[in-house]
């Protein structure tokens, strides 16, 4: 990347940096050129980093008080809530933090979809992102099992049973996952160990995600390549840092509104009943962020088929950079894709709604239609649009859409003229 090199300011800095170039890294992160037209949808990367760190910090502390044993887990959660100093706060931040993490990641993903951030040369960033998303779902699922409530137990039972759909080896795989013949203590302890481990894998993947991002640099709302270190970019610090912090503060307000005023709004009351392997709750649903996939699972009238379609719904995202053949990245210049993008958003929200409803009557019909549309969007619409859509004229520079408004330059000149007199004739 063409970027000014770090020049050590002291002998000590030079000595250190030539042995371990952390100062060069820090310099790179600060001066990393970002397109000047990034909007607030680009602040979710920073927000997500905040979410991960919050989850790790609160999670490690909760781990000091939690007991991973079927006889004590439920009790130890109550102990955290009632006895441990600020235990209620830490647990509510951790539980709602998971929801907020997914809220942010969904916005981040749809941002990528709208502005075509997955397209060349950013395919690897996107694929690492999909893997992070998969690991997030696995981590969240295993975390939800730990309180050992009714939803924990039956959620674990249903999700692990997904693997029993695999022909021939399915039963052995579920037995292996459980460490027994049903979800039990061996299952709980291994889920705890993995729930502790996976966030650190996610952390590692986020480093790769950012590394891969820093090779081509950020996409931007216009979607055309920017000239680095020109007047089209700004250093990450302080410009993007300030913007990220502004967005983060708004995000934290929403986050902590849930923590303090509606800490259980996103959870399920049945999870405050201790796990009972003899009684399934009449209405079992996963956490809200998994509902669209749950709806797809139930829409297919076959066990193996449902599982295949559910995993395919995520896997199709890996292929996305090659399914969308349009050379134009940003939806701003794709009049037809832009409409289908919003249909996709509506479809995913509809699937989420249907995932929370019983799988019968109109709900079942709608979830089949929505499932079909989801796959049609990726597998048919995107390749076809890439060929036949007539895209709008792309600007030459990311500045043009701002500066090309008639009268705008005159307005600037007039405003600037007040301060600088005649010198502004050379403006632009």
């Amino acid at each position: 990347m063409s970027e000014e090199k770090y020049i050590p300011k002291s002998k000590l800095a030079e000595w250190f940096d030539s042995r371990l170039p952390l100062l060069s890294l820090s310099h790179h992160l600060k001066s990393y050129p970002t397109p000047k037209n990034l909007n607030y949808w680009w602040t979710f990367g920073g927000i997500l980093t905040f979410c991960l760190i919050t989850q790790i910090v609160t999670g490690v502390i909760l781990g000091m008080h939690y007991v991973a044993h079927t006889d004590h887990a439920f009790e130890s959660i109550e102990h955290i809530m009632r006895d441990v100093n600020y235990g209620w706060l830490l647990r509510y931040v951790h539980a709602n933090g998971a929801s907020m993490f997914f809220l942010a990641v969904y916005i981040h993903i749809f941002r990528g979809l709208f502005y075509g951030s997955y397209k060349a040369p950013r395919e690897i960033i996107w694929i690492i992102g999909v893997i992070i998303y998969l690991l997030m779902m696995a981590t969240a699922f295993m975390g939800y099992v730990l309180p050992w409530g009714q939803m924990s137990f039956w959620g674990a039972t249903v999700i692990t049973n997904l693997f029993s759909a695999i022909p021939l080896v399915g039963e052995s795989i579920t037995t292996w996952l459980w460490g027994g013949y049903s979800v039990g203590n061996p299952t709980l302890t291994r889920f705890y160990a993995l729930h502790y481990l996976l966030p650190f894998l996610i952390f590692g993947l986020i480093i790769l995600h950012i590394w891969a991002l820093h090779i081509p640099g950020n996409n931007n709302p216009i979607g055309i390549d920017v000239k680095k270190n020109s007047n089209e970019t700004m250093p990450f610090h302080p410009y993007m840092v300030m913007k990220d912090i502004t967005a983060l503060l708004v995000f934290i307000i929403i986050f902590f509104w849930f923590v303090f005023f509606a800490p259980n709004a996103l959870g399920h009351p049945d999870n405050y009943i201790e796990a009972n392997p003899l009684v399934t709750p009449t209405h079992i649903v996963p956490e809200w962020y998994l509902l669209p996939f749950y709806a797809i699972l139930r829409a297919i009238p076959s066990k193996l088929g449902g599982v295949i379609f559910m995993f395919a719904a995520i896997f199709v995202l890996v292929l996305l950079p090659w399914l969308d053949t349009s050379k134009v990245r940003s939806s701003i210049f794709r009049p037809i894709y832009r409409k289908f993008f919003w249909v996709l958003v509506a479809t995913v929200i509809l699937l989420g709604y249907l995932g929370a409803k019983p799988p019968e009557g109109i709900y079942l019909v709608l979830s089949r239609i929505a499932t079909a549309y989801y796959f049609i969007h990726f597998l048919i619409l995107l390749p076809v649009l890439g060929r036949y859509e007539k895209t709008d004229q792309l600007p030459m520079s990311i500045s043009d859409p701002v500066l090309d408004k008639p009268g705008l330059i005159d307005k600037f000149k007039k405003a600037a003229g007040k301060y600088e007199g005649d010198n502004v004739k050379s403006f632009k």
Partner: protein
Amino acid sequence: MSKKLMPKRRDFLFTATYTIGAVGLVSAIWPLIDQMNPDSSVKALSTTEVDISAVEPGKTITVLWRGKPIFIRRRTKQEIDEAAAVDLKDLKDPEKDSDRAKNPEWLVMIGVCTHLGCVPLDNKGEYNAWFCPCHGSHYDTSGRIRKGPAPTNLEIPKYEFVNNNIIKIG
């Protein structure tokens, strides 16, 4: 192939070393995988005896075996007749009722839906027998899948009548 590209002694040694290394690595991984399978203490709890003398006709009791619920239902005459009268062609997973219940009065099944493992509710659903609330599978009075996403009938565990009052499961 020119002489220079012919495999040399050194290439052979490299390949052999990699191969032995790979075999060693795979065999070292096996204990790490197998430790997750059911351990000896879990396997030891493999039978359970149940006293069924207090069960009235038309009632089901549920006991726990290997962490799974076992339904033991004393079926009514009507239920037995209904189960026996079903044409095997109407079944998704064809099985005769007489093969499922050694003693037609007693139906012993693993109470785990064969779809995704929920516990079906009894006296519910379209066949007024078992119904799984999770994803809507309907089972008949013999525990056979009739409607919904479950692929197979409710499983019959290994069991035997020790005497008229005691069933040994496992």
